[in-house]
């Protein structure tokens, strides 16, 4: 069964390789500076290296696909995303993988009656507009800068050719590396907790953890996608929108990397905050949107007459279509899987309003007068509870979200086996000891669990004005919930 579910992850990996290679090597191949085969080799090697060495572990997965709480559901979401990416790849359109996946998740949300975070949808809309514009601006600035540099240093034709070639390979390889590192958890992450692999020592030189072995397989799936099916999208990015000169090719991929780095990097934000500098607003960026924006930016700089706007329009509609298609496929497939094949595609999540919860909500600064009539009630689906809350006019959307957070039923039991499973290297000693203190206890809500731990050690308490730390803490909690969660299905 594991192998069967894994197949959809591998399919997603393959389609990711087929579509996203163009982001890092498209312009290089389009300008004929690097041939397809060389680009494919570099891309594959660095994607695999990135996946295995820097592949973000279990933690990031939980954020991306965390809400999907059954294997069959994850299988369908991955499958729906892969199919929609494949369709776009066939049309030669570079699309964002994460948006396809979000589309798949939205389909799952509709099917299961879970709530969709509309902020995510606004963010996606923003990436379609802001990311290409930012990228185009950066491409124009960088193009001018590179132009001045060539003039200033009097770089000859052949020397320039050589430098650009190296530049394209280096930028491409780095891009491929981060493509592997950032995406492998989306492709393989959901399978990490159920993987049958054990740690493997390779000739005693280095060892691969079970997750790394899984990521290696995913990396290979991406690499196969690169080799077998990526040419079409590469042609679109590299020569379809405009015919790029080698310098323009380098500038485009460089601008795309800068935009991704500056606007998606929490590292930079952390650095700026710690030095008391104003931070760059983190806008949602996506690799495919960035590269297309950069290429258009260069086209505009040279007058804009060469840009094939019809194709640009096609790409834009592809961006809109991708999440929608993924959502529809996901919804329909879940219906079949659930009703025809009798597979559990989700674990129902209920909401229970108790006196204890109301007190906690009160402490969060929300006037609970309005919801007193709900005490003692239980809602089997998020949408039902949301409807009940929406009826209360006095509550803002934010307040509703807080109420839902504290009433969500997520039963946790701190078992001995669970404690043994907790990764000791990642969780600090104090944190682990705190967990041992509450051994054997059962919690109906996660907030009760969090409070219990926070009472034992300050290491489990969120810190003020330390976003990095609090985010890490959230990751740790999510990880621990997965371990201690009681099977709620059996309790109903």
């Amino acid at each position, binding site marked *: 069964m594991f192998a069967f579910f894994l197949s959809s992850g591998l399919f997603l990996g393959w389609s990711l390789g087929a579509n996203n290679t163009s982001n890092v090597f498209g312009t290089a191949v389009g*300008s*004929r*500076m690097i*041939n397809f085969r060389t680009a494919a080799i570099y891309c594959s090697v660095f994607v695999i290296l990135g996946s295995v060495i820097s592949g973000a572990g279990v933690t990031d997965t939980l954020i991306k696909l965390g809400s999907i709480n059954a294997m069959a559901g994850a299988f369908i979401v991955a499958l729906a995303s892969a199919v929609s990416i494949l369709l776009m790849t066939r049309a030669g359109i570079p699309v964002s993988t994460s948006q396809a996946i979000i589309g798949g998740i939205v389909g799952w949300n509709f099917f299961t009656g879970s709530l969709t975070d509309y902020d995510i949808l606004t963010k996606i809309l923003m990436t379609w507009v802001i990311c290409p514009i930012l990228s185009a601006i950066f491409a124009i600035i960088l193009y001018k800068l590179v132009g001045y540099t060539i*003039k200033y240093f*009097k770089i*000859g*034709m*052949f*020397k320039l*050719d*050589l430098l650009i*070639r*190296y530049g394209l390979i280096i930028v491409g390889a780095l891009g491929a590396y981060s493509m592997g590192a950032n995406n492998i958890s989306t492709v393989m992450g959901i399978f990490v907790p159920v993987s049958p692999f054990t740690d493997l020592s390779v000739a005693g030189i280095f060892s691969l953890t079970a997750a790394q072995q899984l990521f290696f397989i995913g990396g290979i799936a991406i690499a196969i996608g690169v080799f077998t099916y990526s040419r079409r999208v590469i042609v679109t990015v590299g020569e379809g929108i405009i015919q790029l*000169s*080698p310098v323009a090719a380098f500038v485009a991929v460089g601008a795309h990397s800068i935009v991704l780095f500056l606007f998606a990097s929490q590292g930079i934000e952390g650095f700026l905050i710690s030095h008391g500098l104003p931070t760059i607003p983190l806008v949602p960026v996506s690799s495919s949107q960035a590269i297309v924006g950069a290429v258009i930016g260069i086209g505009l700089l*040279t007058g804009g007459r060469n840009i094939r706007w019809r194709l640009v329009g096609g790409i834009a509609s592809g961006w809109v279509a991708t999440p929608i298609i993924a959502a529809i496929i996901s919804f329909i497939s879940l219906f079949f899987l659930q009703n025809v094949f009798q597979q559990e595609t989700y674990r129902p999540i209920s909401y229970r309003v108790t006196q204890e919860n109301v007190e906690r909500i009160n402490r969060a600064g929300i006037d609970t007068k309005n919801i007193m009539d709900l005490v003692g009630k239980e809602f089997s689906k998020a949408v039902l509870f949301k409807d009940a809350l929406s009826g209360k006019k006095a509550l803002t959307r934010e307040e509703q979200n807080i109420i839902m957070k504290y009433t969500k039923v997520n039963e946790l039991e701190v078992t001995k086996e669970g404690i043994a499973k907790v990764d000791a290297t990642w969780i600090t000693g104090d944190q682990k000891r705190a967990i041992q203190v509450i051994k054997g206890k059962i919690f109906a809500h996660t907030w009760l669990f969090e409070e219990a731990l926070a009472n034992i050690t300050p290491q489990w308490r969120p810190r003020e004005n330390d976003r990095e730390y609090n985010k890490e803490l959230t990751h740790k909690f999510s990880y621990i919930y997965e371990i201690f969660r009681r099977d709620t299905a059996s309790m109903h």
Partner: protein
Amino acid sequence: MGFRLLKRTSGIERDLDDFLDQVSRSGLLFQSAIDSYFKDNLEAFERKTEEMIEIEHRGDALRRSLETQLYTKTLIPESRGDVLELLENMDTLLDHFKGAVWRFEIERPQICVEYHDDFRELVSCGVEAVEATVLSCRAFFKNVDTVADHMHKVIYWETESDKVSTNLQRKIFRREDLRLSHKRHLRDFARYLEKIADEAEDVADRLNIYVIKRSM
């Protein structure tokens, strides 16, 4: 791989410089050969002719090797076509020098002493025009911004060459004591020599377009 690539480009740059050197040398030799011809030093003239033929062969070999390298090693993909055309055109100039010296060798024109200076000037204009073209070419490969510094000289020498040639032809046909066949023979030579600067100008015009294309 890195060092191999570095060597490869520097090799191409060397070959290219070498090729342009041949064009430039061919011009200087041509000038000197014609001078020997006028001084009736046929031995020196023939030696220089032989040398020019060798240079032309070497130029051909270099051009072919450059063309092969550019294609097999997929260098400068966007300018490759232009560079190949430029090489062919420069080679034509080389051929033209050789052709001119051969014509002198085969036809042995009887050039009256009073026209020697005009012919010398005409040759000089052609050689200078080609030299300026060679410099423009080098600039195109090394520092595209300085191409214009040499390009205007090509135009200047071409205009000079026109003037000298017209003047010379006029003088030839104004003389009463020469046979028409002799006059026409001399005129042909004047025209042939004039064409060197013309061709240099054509090459420079094309080069100008390549420069515009590169700067976009």
